[in-house]
């Protein structure tokens, strides 16, 4: 009996991997190995939670945005991020897990979100730095994920990438304006750059040599490019953009490598990275408490909406 089940499992795996090799995309009703499903749920939900938690640091500045235009842009940007969270929750739900469960996993700490949102957004220049660097780094990753093997995830990424295109530009525009502004504005911009540069590089995750989950992720074409490949892509284009507006990259070891045509960056402080992941970043507690509080405050609204529907159904 046990042997037979094993062969069924094996058969699923063989057919699945044949499809992956052909470059076919996997759809919700296709048979897939458990490991693939679990990996996807973990990755997509982490991605969804990141979009949603990422709304908090930026919305912190909505009421203080300095012009009507700036406020419109920021609101529309954060709204997009909420939309992205929504698309991704939808993609995760096709794998047989509900949004309620996903949120519960976030609240119990079982699911993670991007580390970057555990840093505080201190000045208006941080809003620029987030759009330019954080969204910039995210886009590099997301563009690569448009070709991920799971259909619903890939389709969500295509939609997200389309919308992301203004996010990085609006952030860079803020930085450019500040660098063309008063001395105080320039200092603010450089200070934001100094604080956000390294955490942005950390967004790509550990170096390839020490990345724990990537084995099957590559084989199953969930991940299409390595952490270091993507990190380099990001650095290469960002350094030039910084130079154009007169911002310094806070890395004294940064240098251009003639041979491979990439920048070499200095050592990343992985101690800090792991410290923040372990929950000891400046804002970990604040972000989670806020999410839980909002969730609890919305409970009566959701319950009432359901109750109203049931009443109406009974009447008809």
């Amino acid at each position, binding site marked *: 009996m046990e042997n037979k089940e094993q062969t069924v499992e094996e058969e699923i795996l063989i057919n699945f991997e044949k499809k992956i090799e052909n470059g076919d995309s996997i*759809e919700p009703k296709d048979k897939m190995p458990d490991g693939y499903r679990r990996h996807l749920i973990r990755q997509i939900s982490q991605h969804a939670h990141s979009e949603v938690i990422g709304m908090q640091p930026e919305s912190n500045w909505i009421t203080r945005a300095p012009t009507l235009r700036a406020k419109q842009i920021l609101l529309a940007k954060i709204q997009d991020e909420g939309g992205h969270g929504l698309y991704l929750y939808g993609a995760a739900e096709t794998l047989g897990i509900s949004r309620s469960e996903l949120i519960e996993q976030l609240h119990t700490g079982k699911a993670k979100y991007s580390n970057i949102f555990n840093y505080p957004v201190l000045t208006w220049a941080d809003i620029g730095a987030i759009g330019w660097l954080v969204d910039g780094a995210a886009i590099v990753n997301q563009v690569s994920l448009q070709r991920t093997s799971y259909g619903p995830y890939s389709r969500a990424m295509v939609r997200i990438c389309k919308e992301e295109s203004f996010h990085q530009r609006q952030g860079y525009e803020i930085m450019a304006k500040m660098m063309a502004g008063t001395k105080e504005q320039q200092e603010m911009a450089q200070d934001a750059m100094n604080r956000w540069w390294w955490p942005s590089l950390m967004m790509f995750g550990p170096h390839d040599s020490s990345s724990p989950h990537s084995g099957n992720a590559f084989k199953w074409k969930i991940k299409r490019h390595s952490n270091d490949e993507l990190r380099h892509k990001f650095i290469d284009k960002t350094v030039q953009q910084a130079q154009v507006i007169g911002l310094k990259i806070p890395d004294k070891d940064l240098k251009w490598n003639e041979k491979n045509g990439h920048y070499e960056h200095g050592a990343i402080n992985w101690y800090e990275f792991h410290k923040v992941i372990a929950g000891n970043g400046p804002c970990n507690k604040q972000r989670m408490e806020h999410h839980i509080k909002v969730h609890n405050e919305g409970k009566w609204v*959701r319950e009432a909406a359901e109750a109203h529907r049931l009443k109406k159904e009974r009447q008809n």
Partner: protein
Amino acid sequence: MTTDTQLELWEVFMQSKPGANYIHAGSVHASDKSMALQNARDTYSRRGEGTSIWVVPANAIVASNPDDNDLFFDPANDKVYRHPTFYVMPKDAKAI
């Protein structure tokens, strides 16, 4: 008393311009039809992506089973006479 949920799942189909096919855009959660429609509008039509929206309760959608693909779809592959290129037309005939 009801328990807390994230409301029901609905699938959203958008028509990008009059006359175009409705294409699946994604999903939203909502407790009733009008909420589903409004949520779909606010989620999937923020950039003028649509001129019309359909929302369907996700549990009302019936999907074919990938295991049945050979019996569902393969038999149509050899019916070449359904395609116009199958037919030999007299050389001089026009507009056909």
